[in-house]
């Protein structure tokens, strides 16, 4: 299952990792089911349409929404199996859709977009791609690498890449426009897409320490997936879903501490004197801990000079959320 988190989804969809019948994958190419959670207005819907067409046939789409959401769905969701309700219902719908459409009928959703380049070919320059020599330019609207000025005595190619809005490790509805040299971020801009207005998927949850602890476990699930530990992520998601006993929680903490993830995150994403390791450590030692509100103006500069993987860890460690951000009245730009 490839999960696309839209407006109002929060981290709730990560609890799918708890279901032993379901395997979450980091790219739509590996999925047979696209699970769209929440609202997808405007540019977010357009991005969802593009992701939809990248799933291999036979494929199917499940839309997880709430009954009083009256927003206009994008094309990818017009024929989707719609599911309202809690995570158990969602898992059952996903498994049923996969069995019925993918493994029995072998008939999948048709493409929703024409198979054409997203932009016109911009033909100029020596080889028609708009750059210099054989480099640079933006053929079909996609920037090519171009030699930049010296860094550490090397004139490395500079590549402009847009990540998101559904990449693992990014908050819902966030895109990152990054200039990379050899994988190192030279310049970054965070872009928050419109997520519309409406209720959230977790609105029925009680608020308080128990909800905060569940949220922390969902966040930990994402952190473990990002750290290459899918089995431990599944364990964390199960705890989030079932609010398991303290013995289970202690075992999870022990396994996470032994995995070396804390060491791997040391010195990554230091903002306000606190790095990703400290955020992870506090999440383990205090189940109801919530990171302080991140000042979004400080995120983009903090990514500069980091390897892209570290930049992603930085962003995830701050536990950002598109809906919360909007209601806080701040932009991430």
């Amino acid at each position: 299952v490839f999960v696309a988190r839209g407006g109002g989804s929060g981290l709730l969809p990560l609890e799918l990792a708890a279901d032993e019948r379901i395997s979450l994958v980091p790219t739509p190419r590996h999925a047979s089911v696209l699970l769209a959670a929440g609202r997808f207005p405007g540019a977010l819907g357009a991005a969802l349409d593009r992701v939809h067409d990248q799933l291999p046939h036979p494929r199917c789409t499940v839309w997880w929404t709430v009954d009083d959401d009256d927003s206009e769905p994008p094309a990818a969701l017009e024929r989707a199996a719609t599911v309202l309700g809690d995570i158990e219902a969602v898992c059952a719908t996903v498994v049923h859709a996969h069995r019925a459409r993918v493994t029995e009928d072998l008939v999948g959703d048709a493409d929703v977009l024409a198979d054409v380049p997203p932009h016109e070919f911009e033909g100029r320059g020596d080889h028609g791609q708009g750059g210099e020599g054989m480099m640079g330019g933006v053929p079909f609207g996609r920037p090519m690498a171009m030699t930049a000025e010296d860094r550490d005595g090397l004139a490395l190619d500079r590549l402009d890449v847009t990540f998101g809005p559904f990449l693992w490790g990014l908050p819902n509805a966030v895109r990152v426009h990054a200039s990379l040299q050899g994988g190192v971020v030279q310049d970054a801009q965070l872009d928050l897409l419109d997520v519309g207005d409406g209720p959230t998927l977790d609105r029925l949850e009680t608020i308080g320490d128990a909800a905060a602890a569940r949220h922390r476990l969902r966040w930990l699930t994402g952190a473990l997936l990002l750290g290459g530990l899918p089995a431990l992520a599944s364990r964390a998601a199960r705890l989030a879903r079932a609010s398991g006993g303290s013995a289970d929680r202690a075992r999870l903490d022990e396994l996470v501490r032994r995995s070396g993830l804390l060491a791997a995150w040391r010195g990554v994403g230091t903002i306000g004197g606190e790095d990703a390791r400290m955020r992870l450590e506090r999440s383990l030692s205090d189940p109801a801990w919530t990171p302080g509100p991140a000042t979004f103006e400080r995120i983009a500069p903090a990514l500069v000079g980091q390897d892209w993987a570290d930049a992603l860890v930085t962003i995830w460690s701050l536990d950002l959320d598109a809906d919360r951000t909007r209601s806080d009245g701040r932009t991430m730009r």
Partner: protein
Amino acid sequence: VTAHADAWAAPVLSAVVLVMGVSVVGVVDGVAGRVVAGQGVGWSTLAVPWQRAALALVQQPSTTERPDRVMWVLAPAAYAALAAAGLVVVPWSSTFSIADVRAGIVWWGTVEALTVVAIFVHGWSANSHQPLLAAYRFVAVGLSYLLLSMFVLIAAAIPAESLALSEIVSSQHGLWNVIRQPLGLPLFLVVALGASTWGPLDLADGADLGGGTVAEVAARAQLVWWGARAAMLTAFAAMAATVFLGGWQGPLLPEPVWVVVKTLAVLVVLTVSRHLVARVRAERFVILCWLVLLPVAFADLAIAGVEVLR
């Protein structure tokens, strides 16, 4: 070694061994994942890898805009072929190995070095950003860990006074290299994880780059790539059993059984690491390789040399 497979039988034999190894990796990976996740393990767990494989076979192959199609197909094939090429020099008993290569350890070193090319080309040929970034990240790391292998393999060849793997196994009579050269096996396992881009060293196919070199690969091609990685893991396990765990040597059981048992033991350790150890940071791992592991590998070589002179 006195007997070898015929020219036609060698590819068939190595393919059979690798398919068995890949199956073991699939099953052990599935079972270990369930145990670490705290879920129950039953007979149905054993079926999961086969169900996944069956699904991949009926899925539609993916494509991107203007990929290098030839290279995109050749890279997984080359990677799997390298695993087979490495495996053929492993002696299965005191009298049999699949291929007759006198300088087997040099041959193996060549195989290791070429894995970097196969993995890089796999990421590069998709003509997509995330696979490309993953491919470059892998090359940066690959150059760092491959040097370790060179030192530990030469160290293992010194007491044997030969580059032939059968001589290296014979030299471990009474004292395996894992005891005689205790630094060797851990370093070799680091190389194994790196060259198979597995577990803590899964830097080419990591989820932090949307699946890395495999981010644009679906269906059969994804299955083939995964299988090639598991095959490489198998080849490394067989080589670790040969060079460090005394190969065919052991009491009571027939010689080939000992090779299989030792290979399986190493294979299980390598496979399970994926569920217990977090992925390393590329930058920090490169620093660790050059500043710590490389001097340790050199110490391993120096100790082996002093041992022989003594």
